């Protein structure tokens, strides 16, 4: 009897390739979400007026904030959806085990988060071109990637790690829901409880505010993502595939 021995690395790599191919549709939904966000942010997120020499200068800020909120929600459901029964069963039609399934899911989420983060950052440039074409307003030259590569990379990284953290949260959530359906309500409870309670506010403030620099925030996001992924792996490794 001759047995094939696949190493974990090989299997994970094959799974990643397979999943990237199979889940390509989610990236198309990402594009739809981004375009939706872009359309809503065309009027600007905030504005500021200054009077100078008898002239009122109004600055309308167009930021990527709306898009990133949309993409974050997309990421939450992306993390969630790949833990659902249908997706899990299709994975187990091929060579896999709990660990390789988790690892390849995580790698796929990382790849998709990187893609989502970078495209979210770049999608802003579509507005930069579209807005002056369709509006008869003054046009302010704003820092572009070439003018300010460091801050561009920082905010790109921030978007990537934010999306990754949220998709990791979605993944953990989905894993818990797979264990028991009652966890379905966990997210809704969290969304209500976090801003409403004192401790919740403290946690939010610890994460989002009180940061010395964006880099620290970045590190916090990545750490949270790792915690979520590890928890999800611990929870799901003993799970059966109820085919």
């Amino acid at each position, binding site marked *: *009897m*001759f*047995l*094939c*021995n*696949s190493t*974990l690395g090989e*299997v994970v790599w*094959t799974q990643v*390739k*397979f999943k990237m*191919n*199979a*889940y*390509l*549709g989610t990236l198309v939904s990402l594009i739809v979400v981004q375009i939706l966000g872009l359309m809503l942010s065309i009027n600007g997120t905030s504005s500021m007026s200054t009077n100078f020499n008898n002239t009122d200068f109004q600055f309308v800020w167009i930021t990527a904030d709306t898009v990133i909120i949309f993409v974050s929600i997309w990421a939450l459901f992306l993390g969630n959806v790949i833990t659902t029964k*249908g*997706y899990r*069963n*299709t994975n*187990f*039609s*091929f*060579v*896999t*085990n*709990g*660990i*390789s399934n988790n690892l390849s899911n995580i790698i796929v989420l990382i790849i998709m988060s990187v893609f989502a983060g970078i495209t979210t950052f770049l999608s802003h440039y579509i507005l930069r071109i579209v807005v002056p074409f369709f509006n008869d307003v003054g046009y302010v030259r704003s820092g572009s990637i070439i003018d300010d590569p460091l801050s561009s990379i920082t905010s790109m990284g921030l978007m990537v790690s934010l999306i990754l953290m949220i998709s990791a949260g979605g993944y953990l959530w989905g894993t818990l829901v797979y264990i028991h359906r009652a966890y379905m309500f966990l997210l809704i409870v969290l969304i209500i409880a976090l801003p409403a309670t004192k401790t919740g506010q403290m946690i939010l403030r610890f994460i989002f505010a009180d940061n010395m620099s964006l880099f620290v925030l970045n590190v916090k996001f990545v750490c949270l993502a790792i915690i979520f992924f590890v928890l999800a792996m611990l929870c799901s*490794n*003993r799970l*059966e*595939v*109820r*085919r």
Partner: protein
Amino acid sequence: MTVIDCQNLKKRYKRLNALEDITFQLEEKKITGLIGRNGAGKTTLLKILAGFIRKSAGDVQVFSNNPFNNLRVSANSILVDDQMSFPDSLTLADILEVAPEFYKRWDTELANNLFKYFRLNPKQLHSRLSKGNRATFNMIFGLATRCELTMFDEPTNGMDEAVRTDFYRALLKDYIAHPRSILISSHHLAEMEHLLEDILLIHKGKVVLHQSLEEVKEYAVKLQGTTDLVEKLTDGKEILHAKQLDSQRKYVVIRKEDVPALEGVTIHPVAASEVCMYVTSDRKGGIDDVFM
């Protein structure tokens, strides 16, 4: 070498004992039929062997490993059943294309030829296939993996008569060309008797029989004759099945022993499928008795 080794394997669901006490060993390169009635625990056993679900107690070894969450077992075994699913974003052709990356011994030629023979549409999605076509595709997939342990759970469900015959033929031919351990579960033994070597009969979560097909065929005999005579002959013996044919004649199935040939009693062989049915029957009498 032993492919599967189960010792007192138990599986409990919340309120149900799916497997009570399963002990058997499966030698390599044999086609074994896993036979049992509805709810006997066939599917549960196969899922444990494939590593999809956990055992509750006892010991189970596939290729000398506990199959649950084991990569080696996953790489060398496949379970083909009607719950097999593939992503909706991939067409059947895509699935056949990615499969060799997972299964190192994937037989592309066999897969393509069978695919063409059964006239499946390569652009079709797995979830949109009809029940019979899905079963056919799963079967092709299972055969082409060439896994050392290939398990089929009710593979012919939904297939029409012609496809069933073709399937058994294909299975046998491929087995002869590339011998490996094959475990097929089914509740009708008769149609696949010709390709089985061994029979593993389970009932209510326990192994009832694990013998070669020849032995099973020799397991019992049917005595038919006048009621008095038959009852006298079988007195004190274990009666597997009895049926009153009319007011005077009766037949009784008993374990094959030295049965004295008697005037007025004929001895018939009992087919393996009938043996399995009688051995796993709990009731005395048949469905006819309900309508008496």
